[in-house]
């Protein structure tokens, strides 16, 4: 076989492989959306779940997912920002820095179920938070920190050194330069990273089943005092999220319409993740235009 023929064969094979992938992925997305859309309705998105009968919704789970996401971001963003700033602006090339980098790498590759078990041991049992939103938010913080830190660090590293020199030449201290010049310049990229990690948090379940719990007690949506037990804002109540709900009803659900509910909930999850991705692109693009001359 001469090399021209084998070239043709190889390239044809690559076309076949690539189109197989596209077909698999399109089928997957199509299946999720098409089987999920009939289940979606305003009632489904807002009403509470039912344990034994058909017709339950995902209202509370959906709220829990967003609340947990926001709480996790409030806890993890300042930590990740601080760590990212230190790593990119202050850290020297020494053993401590390489130890820290190794630790972050290890944390990012830990199975999320191990992170969840650690959260269970520390927050649920030792600190006595019980199965609660707060325990879940801490567990998700550990899950989120390494990737968020890395993306913030990369965003800061992409800011040209001239900006730093400019700040220092104007007599600003290093910290002031970072805070007032570098971070604003990196803001579009940082925000993109934050939104993308929000998508990851939104769909995470393994780290939550032993920390935020697997039950969703009824909530009183007229009571916004965080200290009342039935208030949606109470961080100490157990909170099953949407992703956990899908897992739960598929492994031990006994309602007759479990499949329809999980199809609908899966579609909601995937559409949300899609939304996060689009938002990340849009925000990054828009902010970049706004903040720079480009």
């Amino acid at each position, binding site marked *: 076989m001469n*090399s*021209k023929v*084998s*070239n043709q064969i190889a390239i044809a*094979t*690559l076309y076949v*492989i*690539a189109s197989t992938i*596209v077909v698999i*992925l399109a089928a*997957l*997305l199509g*299946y*999720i959306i098409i089987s999920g859309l009939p289940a979606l309705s305003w009632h489904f998105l807002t009403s509470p779940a039912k344990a034994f009968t058909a017709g339950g919704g995902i209202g509370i789970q959906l709220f829990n997912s967003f609340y947990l996401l926001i709480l996790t971001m409030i806890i993890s963003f*300042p930590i990740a*920002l601080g*760590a990212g*700033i230190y790593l990119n602006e*202050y*850290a020297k090339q020494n053993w401590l820095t390489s130890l*820290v980098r190794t630790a*972050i790498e*290890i*944390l990012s*590759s*830990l*199975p*999320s*179920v*191990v*992170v969840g*078990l*650690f959260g269970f041991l520390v927050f649920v*049992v030792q600190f006595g938070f019980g199965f609660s939103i707060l325990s879940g938010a801490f567990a998700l913080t*550990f899950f989120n*920190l*390494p990737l968020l*830190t890395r993306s913030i660090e990369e965003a800061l590293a992409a800011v040209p050194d001239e900006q730093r020199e400019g700040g220092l030449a104007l007599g600003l*201290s290093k*910290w*002031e330069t970072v*805070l007032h010049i570098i971070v604003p310049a990196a803001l579009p990229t940082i925000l993109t990273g934050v939104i993308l990690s929000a998508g990851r948090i939104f*769909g*995470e*379940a*393994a780290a939550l*089943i032993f920390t935020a719990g*697997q039950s969703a007690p009824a909530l009183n949506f007229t009571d916004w005092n965080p200290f009342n037990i039935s208030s949606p804002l109470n961080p100490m109540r157990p909170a099953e999220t949407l*992703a956990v709900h*899908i897992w739960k009803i*598929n*492994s031990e659900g006994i309602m007759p319409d479990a*499949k329809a509910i999980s*199809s609908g909930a*899966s579609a909601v*999850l*995937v559409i949300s*993740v*899609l939304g996060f*991705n689009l938002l990340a692109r849009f925000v990054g693009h828009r902010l970049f235009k706004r903040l720079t001359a480009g």
Partner: protein
Amino acid sequence: MNNKLQKQLLKRSKAAKLERLGKTVSFLALMLITVTVFAIIIFVASKGLATFFSNHVNIIDFLTGKDWNPNVTNAKGQPEVGALPMISGSFVVTILSALLATPFAIGTAIFMNEISPHRGAKLLQPVIELLVGIPSVVYGFIGLTVVVPAIRNIFGGSGFGILAGTFVLFVMILPTVTSMSVDALRSVPRYYREAALALGATQWQTIYKVVLRAATPGMLTAVVFGMARAFGEALAVQMVIGNAALLPTNLVSPASTLTSVLTTGIGNTVMGSLQNNALWSLALVLLMMSLIFNLVIRMIGRKGAMSK
């Protein structure tokens, strides 16, 4: 007057104080992450090792025993905590899904970067990015409603098992391995390709003999990374593998992995009991494997860097 001036000059300025504060706070944030990692390792290890030290289970028996039934004690008066079924289950699904995903991932990566870098990559890039983001429970649910019934129809049996787990993991790790392979190919300098083509090599010869060779360390990293993800994936696998703590004998009978036993078991056992400690030992095995995958990735990186 002099005293006053001296004081003023020797006092830290507001900016210097702020500088110190900012540096300290950001350093503390970084340390918090580092300390957490060590805390996770220490906590899981101390719980996991309790099986061997306070319950006196032999570690060799634990790793090689074939019977997992922590409530029952065997003839020797030892509890039946053989983790081999779960350990082998985890390894089998990981290796099979990696074997299945690697050719597809690398093929797609080559297609995106070498064959059709404009139109093909533009189509595939967003699809792959989106697939990385699909939550694992959704994959599990699809496995449960599509893959498991399909296997049941073709091979008989319940449909739950290693094969179903492999398919689900294959689709799950595919986007990760693909996008990392694309990065590896992209870092091969352009003049490698130009030199090969100038010597009269066909496109495929260039890809196979030059580009792929140069990108091997990066590709290996991508595959190992995918394997680490597959090994640690919990819920999607748990939903389709059948959760029977038996040594896998074929691909279509129910089996279990470390993660699947952990997710189903930890809520049903009492803290501090042997049953619970044995589960923590499984978590420790999982943790150790994750560290080993990390080490392998580092070693590949170092080797790849040396050959340049």
